[in-house]
């Protein structure tokens, strides 16, 4: 079965979830992580759409954590990146790397 392709935003979400780990990755922390590391503003609603899509593709699994008092007693939906998700990230990375390869001088030329 071919592996699903990842969109750029989906890749960012997966990377953030991997960084945070299965006990700390949830919508709010994922947004924070992307904003902090990628220094770009993220529309929070888009993260829900992306997570829903990734879950449907079988790249992440979600579960409800314990209730948290500062959240009004409500639980977090924690995100864990599955093996398929990790493989998809690796595939995307190698695809990007091979595409980058040899482009250094060309990009320097175009930036001049």
């Amino acid at each position, binding site marked *: 079965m071919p592996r699903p392709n990842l969109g750029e935003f989906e890749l960012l979400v997966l990377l953030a979830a991997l960084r945070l780990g299965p006990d700390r990755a949830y919508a*709010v922390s994922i947004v924070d992580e992307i904003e902090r590391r990628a220094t770009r503003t993220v529309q929070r609603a888009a993260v*829900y759409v992306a997570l829903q899509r990734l879950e449907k593709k079988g790249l992440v699994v979600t579960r409800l954590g314990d209730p948290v008092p*500062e959240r009004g007693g409500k639980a977090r939906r924690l995100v864990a990146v599955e093996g398929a998700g990790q493989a998809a990230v690796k595939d995307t990375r190698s695809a990007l790397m091979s595409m980058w390869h040899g482009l250094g001088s060309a990009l320097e030329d175009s930036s001049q």
Partner: protein
Amino acid sequence: MSALKTPRAVVRALELLLPSDRREDVIGDLEELHQRRRARLGALAAAAVTTINSVWIALAFLIIWLREKDWSLRLLSRLEFLLAVRLLRKQPFLSATAVVSLAAGIAVSAIGFTMVDQMLNGSLPMQDGDRFVRFDVRTQAGEQAQLNGDHFRLLQQQTAAFEHIGAISAQRSNVRHGAGSIETVGVARITPSSLMYLDDVPLLGRALLESDAAIGAPPAAVIRAAMWQRMYRSSASALGGELSIAGSKYEIVGVMPDTFLFPSGGEVWLPHSIEPAGTQVLEPLSLFGILAPGTDAASAEVEINSLANLVHSPEAASQVEARDRLAIGVQRFTEVPGPIGIQRLIGVLVPLLVVLVIALNVANLVQARTASRTRELSVRTVLGAPRARLIAQLTLESALMGSLAAALGTGCAVVALRWIDAAITEAPYWIDLTASPRTFGFAILVALLVAAVCGALPALRATRVSLQQTIASGGQAFDVSRFGAAMMVTQMALAVALLSGALVMARGLWSAAGSDLELPDQQVLTAQITTPPPSADDERLPAPERVARAIAEIPGVLASGTADHLPRYDAPASAIEVEARGGNGALGAAGQATRAMVSEGFLESLRARLVAGRLLVPEDFAIDAGAVTVVNEPFVARFFGGSNPVGARFRTLAENTEEGHGPWLKIVGVVPDLGLGGGAEEFAAGYYTPGHTSRRYFYLSLLSASGPETLAPSLRSSLLELDPELVVSRVQLLSEVNGEERAFQAGMGATLSAIGVLALVLSLLGLYAMISLSITQRTREIGVRLALGASRVGVLRSVLRRAGRTLLLGGVIGTGLGLAFVRLQDQMLAARLPAGEPWILPVVLAAFAVAGTAACVVPALRAQRISPTQALKAD
């Protein structure tokens, strides 16, 4: 801590909008973020940002839902479509009945809609056609009045509401081309300044100019292309040609295209001059207006009422006294005045009833089909098919039928409208009965509505039943008997009403359309003569007498005369009372009789056979002659029981005279029925009196030994010589008199009967479907009853009893509705109809009973043949 919480309204809204499994974590996330924001931005700003954020989140989940939900309406896939087609093909009889019913309904309603739409909403076919208005001028007493030249001038000078005020008049006149042929065509007069508001430009020469209307200007006329082609072979030499109209000569100065028809068709236009101010007695004018852009009829009405009442007094600037004030209504130019006529009745009421009957019928059929699938639907529900999906599929099936029906119905409507448009020749020129985009829109709307209601309602009902209920009842939880019977009764009631009403009208129209009269149809030439308005100083003999004398001298004429009515036209009827035998003034029979006023020779020109006594002789026409009359055979049959009435007397009952009756008329002769009552049996009793009409039109009749048509040219020229202002029209053989009207009436009668029969057939098909279904549903019950020893006759009786109840109830309600419908027709129809026919309703009901029983017999026999063992095995 409550102050730290997310705004409550936002939480509530999200609880409603989010899917249940995502409420906790998403609202938790929002709560967490809100607290952070509050610490950073303050309570108010945090609340604002959180609210905006929640809107985005709700939208995000809406997108997720739209993408992922298996919602049925979006998924009316090819498969569903194929299923619907298969179902239609699987039950061809039922599908065909539903499609044909719907198509008939759509066709009839589209025709009715187009006719009413054109009559109510038609606009002049020109750029600003919607702004043209006419004036309804009335006195304080409510009598019709007219404006005059003073009004015209004042309005022209002072109006702000109207861009233009013009004067028009139109009538049919004799037109002689040069020294050659004469023909009768529509001639209109129009103020030349009005022409710039009409879109057309001359094909040849020029249009009428203001100078043409000036006093002393050379008389000018423009003609329409049709006349130019017909009479001048489209030659440029037509310009400068001479037209003689009503004794005056006009020079042709231009040719207008055939699209130039304002105000009422016709082929010749003359300049309408307005009498100068200070004229003693001003001629009444027929004015029209063009509203200024942005002005509505209501404000124009206010203005014209105040202006017109300024001028109505001797001192133009002062207000007129209250009693002399005119009340002027501003109407769209195309508004058809007058009472509700036959067209409107046909146009509105009948299609409405037909569509109702058909909608009920289709709903019934669809319901019957849906009911037979209750078990399947219930099982599908249990297997997880959402209700919306089932409803959508059932609605798709109806929509498919609706589309087929719309195509078929609209096609029929287009053809029928084309035929009606060609058949109605005397309608105003702007009425275009060809199918318009609005007609198609209407047909599609009706189809969709009927399909949606017929499909969705039974579907909603069928999918509401529970599985338990369905399985427990062996698959027939959907009770067709009550809902279906109610619809069936309503439908039949409407069908009975429609059919009986249609038959009454059709019978009336048919009997008026033709009957065997003892008339020399092919040997008599007739014509209508219209005289100019009478003037006080005209000391000549009345026109009918002068015409009667002139035509008697035409070579080849055996007999001739004039009358106020020709055979087959409706003559007026009035109440009469007959003097009892013995002549002492005691009264005998009384009733309605029609009357015609005839000149000497008129009855002879119709070759009236003398049944008894004598015809009218010259002495009867003398001023000092005693009042005598010749009656017809139906009159004798009605008032004298068939015995010879010569010498007897009768008089008319006139409510508006002091005595309450007219003078005694002595019967001097009897002739056969010569079509006095328009051919209708009910109005055939009538009498002929010597005299002439005071109306401005009358008819003449010429009996010729051979080829009366050849007399037409000499008739026209001798009348033109007698009085150039006499307008001769409808020159035709006696056999053709009232032919157009008779053909129209026969067509209308046939159409109405066809609609009634259609309604009857549809109702019976619906009845058949319902009874058939109810028997299928009761197979098991019937099997049990037969197994328990019930007789087959008993089973048959029980099946027929239920159908009988529906038939009876439908019949009773239908009879009531039918009577009301016929009464309504009587009141609404401009045409004269015979009184309610006592036989029609019983006949319709009997037809229903016979046909209804026939519709029950096939399924009932099937019920009788049911074998108990098979029935118990069945579902």
